[in-house]
């Protein structure tokens, strides 16, 4: 099979196609499972030549931000008495940013979390905190997979397909 040497490897077309198909299948599964919603596509559409790493940059910001917020929530829940208003404010922030990037499951967990803050349910808040923590970790893992697949496609000389 022909190989081209140089800065970008042009792998055989069928390999690029295969990588692209795997990518589309994986991304589709994330939508199907409800991990991501249409807002994620909006995010991807903002990436272009003038902003080539936009999606990864925003995802990175999200995880730095969510880690900080989750730590704040945990600390607030450990204090006595618990400042539920403060916890709620942090959950509201996380709900906002998860909604903006299309992280649907995280967003929905935040909605439930807020209702427990409202009723000042300590147990409910603890459970939600753990769920949010888990879900963010799952999201991070899946997005890292996704971005790695994007890099593979580009490295093979192909372009990343956009979902419509």
């Amino acid at each position, binding site marked *: 099979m022909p190989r081209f040497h140089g800065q970008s490897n042009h792998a055989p077309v069928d390999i690029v196609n295969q990588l692209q198909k795997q990518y589309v299948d994986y991304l589709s599964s994330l939508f199907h499972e409800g991990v991501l919603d249409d*807002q994620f596509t*909006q*995010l991807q*559409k*903002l990436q272009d030549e*003038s*902003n080539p790493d*936009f999606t990864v*940059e*925003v995802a990175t*910001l*999200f995880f730095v*931000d969510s880690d900080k917020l989750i730590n704040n929530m945990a600390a607030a829940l450990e204090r006595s008495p618990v400042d539920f208003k403060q916890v709620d*404010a942090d959950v*509201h*922030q996380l*709900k*906002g*940013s998860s*909604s*903006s*990037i*299309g992280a649907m499951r995280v967003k929905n967990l935040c909605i439930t979390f807020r209702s427990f803050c409202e009723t000042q349910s300590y147990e409910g808040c603890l459970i939600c905190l753990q769920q949010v923590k888990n879900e963010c970790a799952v999201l991070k893992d899946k997005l890292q997979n996704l971005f790695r697949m994007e890099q593979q496609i580009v490295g093979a000389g192909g372009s990343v397909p956009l979902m419509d």
Partner: protein
Amino acid sequence: MADYGDEPHVLAVDDNLVDRKMIEALLKNSSCRVTTAENGMRALEYLGIRDDQPGESSVSATTSKVNLIITDYCMPGMTGFELLKKVKGSSILKEVPVVIVSSENVPTRINKCLAEGAQMFMLKPLKASDVKKLRCHLMNCRT
């Protein structure tokens, strides 16, 4: 109204970093020049009006340097609604359209903002189509 050519200058105000990055990219994608501010105080500083004075402190410009202000409603310190009031209360800035965005669909909130002079109220998360619509609606759409 100042002539801004084809690239209106928008001031986007939001305390959430992810949202700021998103709105900035959405606006740039719609051929806008963007300045972001992380809260109402910074926004007012940028616009040249002081929070603690009824009028302007030292303003050399006679026209506003921005053509549109987009602000989040829920912000600590000064809310988007309070920022709106300050802008509308300024002789230099009162003609600048202000758009309020919020993740919560609360009719009393919406009506309050519109009554205070907000041009539009939009729900988050914003999409590219929202921003394009906004741009055409509020400013002379050249295309």
